[in-house]
């Protein structure tokens, strides 16, 4: 039998910098909403995982590609608000993408 690894996607998610929550607490909020909307079984299968982004108000979260739509819906319907600013197949590429974004502009809301 082939040792098949399921594809994952990694997302960079920006949140309000004035937020009182810490990274792991925000991750818990997202997880809670995912479980509420799509159930515990889908949550376990989606394998959501929080990664250290090393950027101020940006979270890196990974999930299985198969459950990406569920994850994006959960994110869009979670309070506090989160915005997906980048999506990639590897953490390395994601970090590179986020580095190339003008984070200062995002924070100040300049188009």
């Amino acid at each position, binding site marked *: 039998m082939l040792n098949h690894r399921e594809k994952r996607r990694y997302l960079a998610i*920006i*949140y*309000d910098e004035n937020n009182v929550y810490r990274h792991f607490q925000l991750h818990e909020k997202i997880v809670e*909403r995912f479980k*509420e*909307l799509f159930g515990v079984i889908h949550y376990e299968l989606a394998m959501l995982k929080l990664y250290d982004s090393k950027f101020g108000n940006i979270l890196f979260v990974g999930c299985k590609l198969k459950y*990406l*739509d*569920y994850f*994006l*819906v959960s*994110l*869009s*319907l*979670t*309070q*506090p*608000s*989160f*915005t*997906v*600013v*980048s*999506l990639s197949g590897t953490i390395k590429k994601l970090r590179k993408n986020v580095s190339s*974004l003008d984070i200062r*502009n*995002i*924070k100040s*809301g*300049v*188009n």
Partner: protein
Amino acid sequence: MSKILDLDIIGIDSNYSTNTEPVENIILRMDKKYSMADYYPYLIVSDNIKTLDGKTDLFLIDPFQRKDAIKSKAKRALGVEISIAFAKKLNATMVGKWLKEVKSIYEFCKSNDCQFILSSGARSINELVSARSFESILKLIGVSPKNYWNEITEWLFTKNKVRWVYAKP
């Protein structure tokens, strides 16, 4: 920011517009036609069924409100907008109901020649929703994202052709 979210055009409330020059990827949302509408692309937006008339481009609907009144007032090519921001505050059961209502509004729009529009309803930069996230919500309610983007582009193009010929940045 629109580039990051993969959106070609963003609609912003005319009150929040700080730019003095029209920007290519911005459409102003206003409750009535203001003088700046001569220079900017704009849409007349209403969230009150009583003020909904022939000049209204976009009607912001509460998915839980009765649709009978809208049925009688909705003109052809009216944009019917649903805000995601509203659903963020709902509990899971209500989110399920909200999604069901969104689907029924989509079907209503299809049968009444109205343009279904899903919007972030964002009041800050952090509340914006990326194009990919919109697509996930659309897929969940059984709407083809490709058709949705094509239809909304065509709808905006029609508005653009009629009104914004002179509104060049």
